[in-house]
């Protein structure tokens, strides 16, 4: 039985026809760490708030465990939330902040203090219990917000971009701390972020949203290896997957004049004579100009461990020649130069095909 499930959940904003969240069907297993990811405005925060009860549900339902909580106020849902701004009470000490929810719930003082101390120990905050938030660093404040959520011992954690306000280095550090904390506590967690790296590294499963619609929900590897549509393909992975329009010619897809041989299974799924070919930068090899997609190297990015080649080629499109960009990843310090004319050969197993109209993946 899923611990959290969205059943056709829909949310509208006043005066806007397109729903912020559109008939979302999503299930989160007990103890699972699910990440909601997507660009700004995709509805991920709204979804989280619907789960928390801070946002109304216009159609559909939200279930926690075996209870339909759609109409229940937040306090009856047994959830805890970590806000992007931490929402720490500026006039209360760390200890009072962490214990606030317990105080409201009239937990007796001894037990309250015991639980606060325990949570503080877990997060390394014992020596700060008497400080006010203004005198804490960003990372410490974030931990206080976590502490307040943990001490409630809720059924579900809701986290709304808790790392966005931290600097890059702290973000990486805290990321692992949060993930290991969640594993330790085993609490079902729904986590919102716009950063796909966070999503990939932290989530048991990741749900990708765009314009209020769920694009794909899968393990990180699943998203990476088998993106369900063009959007997911281009969103997950950095640098982004190359998405190139190709013309079908017999048993090949022709890109920039180069024919990419397709498997029988791939050919079977084709409809029409156009197809979108996706191939990740690490999925191409650099060969001679005539042996692969003929491109010109525009920029060479040398990182030492890797080298990225940003190339371009022209292809006939509607209304004349269109320039397309391709990125290739090669071993660091390879002898590639700007302006060189090379060929990029996609490896067969690295080729993804997408329907040019719907954007959906064409399964092998």
């Amino acid at each position, binding site marked *: 039985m899923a611990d959290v499930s969205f059943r056709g959940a829909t949310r509208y904003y006043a005066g806007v026809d397109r729903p912020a969240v559109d008939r979302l069907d999503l299930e989160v297993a007990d103890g699972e760490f699910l990440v909601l990811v997507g660009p700004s405005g995709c509805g991920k925060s709204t979804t989280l708030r619907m789960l928390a009860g801070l*946002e109304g549900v216009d159609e559909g339902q939200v279930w926690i465990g075996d209870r339909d909580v759609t109409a229940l106020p937040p306090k009856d849902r047994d959830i805890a939330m970590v806000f992007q701004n931490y929402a720490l009470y500026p006039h209360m000490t760390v200890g009072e902040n962490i214990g606030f929810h317990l105080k409201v719930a009239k937990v007796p003082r001894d037990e309250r203090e015991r639980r606060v101390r325990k949570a503080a120990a877990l997060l390394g905050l014992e020596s700060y219990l008497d400080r006010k938030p203004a005198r804490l660093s960003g990372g410490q404040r974030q931990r206080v917000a976590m502490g307040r959520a943990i001490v409630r011992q809720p059924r579900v954690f809701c986290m709304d971009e808790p790392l966005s306000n931290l600097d890059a280095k702290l973000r990486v550090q805290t990321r692992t701390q949060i993930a290991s904390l969640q594993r330790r506590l085993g609490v079902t967690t729904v986590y919102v972020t716009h950063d796909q790296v966070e999503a990939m590294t932290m989530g048991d499963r990741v749900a990708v949203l765009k314009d209020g619609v769920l694009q794909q929900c899968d393990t990180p590897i699943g998203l990476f290896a088998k993106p369900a549509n063009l959007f997911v393909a281009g969103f997950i992975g950095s640098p982004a997957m190359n998405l190139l329009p190709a013309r079908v010619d017999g048993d090949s897809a022709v890109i920039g004049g180069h024919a990419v041989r397709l498997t029988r299974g791939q050919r079977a799924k084709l409809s029409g004579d156009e197809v979108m070919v996706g191939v990740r930068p690490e999925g191409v090899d650099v060969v001679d100009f005539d042996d692969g997609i003929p491109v010109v190297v525009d920029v060479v990015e040398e990182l030492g461990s890797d080298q990225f080649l940003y190339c371009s080629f022209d292809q006939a499109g509607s209304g004349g020649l269109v320039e397309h960009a391709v990125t290739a990843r090669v071993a660091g310090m390879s002898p590639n130069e700007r302006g060189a004319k090379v060929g990029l050969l996609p490896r067969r197993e690295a080729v993804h095909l997408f329907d040019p109209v719907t954007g959906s993946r064409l399964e092998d």
Partner: protein
Amino acid sequence: MTVADVGRKAPRRPKPAPGAGRRSPLRVLGMVVVLAFSAFNLLVLYWLIAASFKTPVEIFTKPFALPVRWFQLGRPLRNFAYAWDQAGFGDAFLTTVVLVAASSAAIVLVSAPAAYALTRLGVRGSGPLTNLIAVGMGVPFQTVIIPLFIGLSTVHLTDSLFGLFLVYVALSIPFTVFLLTGFFRSLSDEMEEAAAIDGASPLRTFFAVMLPLARGGLITALILNAIGLWNETLLAIVFLQSQAHFTLARALFTFYGAAEYQSEYGGLIAGVTILVLPMLVLYLVLARRIITGLTLGSGK
């Protein structure tokens, strides 16, 4: 995955968050009280304006009805005419306009440079000096009227509009300086520095750069002082004795006793309206500025 249906319309009002408590009885009661209060205020305004066109009998027996009698007699503005001529409100109006305009202008003229000096010229002790002046806001006028009266009478400036003018200007300085120091402090330094780099003299910088930047604050100070002085009564009572010199508030004060005696209630209310209406109009036009200005210092 899911394709949005064309033609699905958003509901007119998305549902509120569950348990938002919008309908709790306490809140409903609160809203009723608030609306009642607002209605009361509007009713007061209506009563005032309507009553200023009524006969005394109408005022007391039909307070909420529309005025009828004077209109029937073909003299709808009779109360106003009475107040204007017999009770001297016409002269008082002119006096008040001139006095208030001159005083407000003078106050700002004197306070703006002072506020500028205290906030931006970086002299040591500016802070405590500013506080010293601001403290003056807490001094009740009653504390100074006796010596001021004595002092002004020795230079024959009692019962004189000029004397009152001086008093008005001086006693408004604490508030105005306080208000303007807030404004000047909030201005960015870059303009000043740019002017200095361009070789402008400090005086020039003040007039050409700082004053225009602080225009909002200056106008607010002007308006707030104008309102305060228009309504000011105590000092006018102390320092003006002959009717020829009366301000509106002063005239109203004197008229009150006489009106009761003569049952000239219509004229009295017309007088009140003459006093209140200009401020009301000003308020309707400038409400936001007035409200922001008056509460600025308090809201931090």
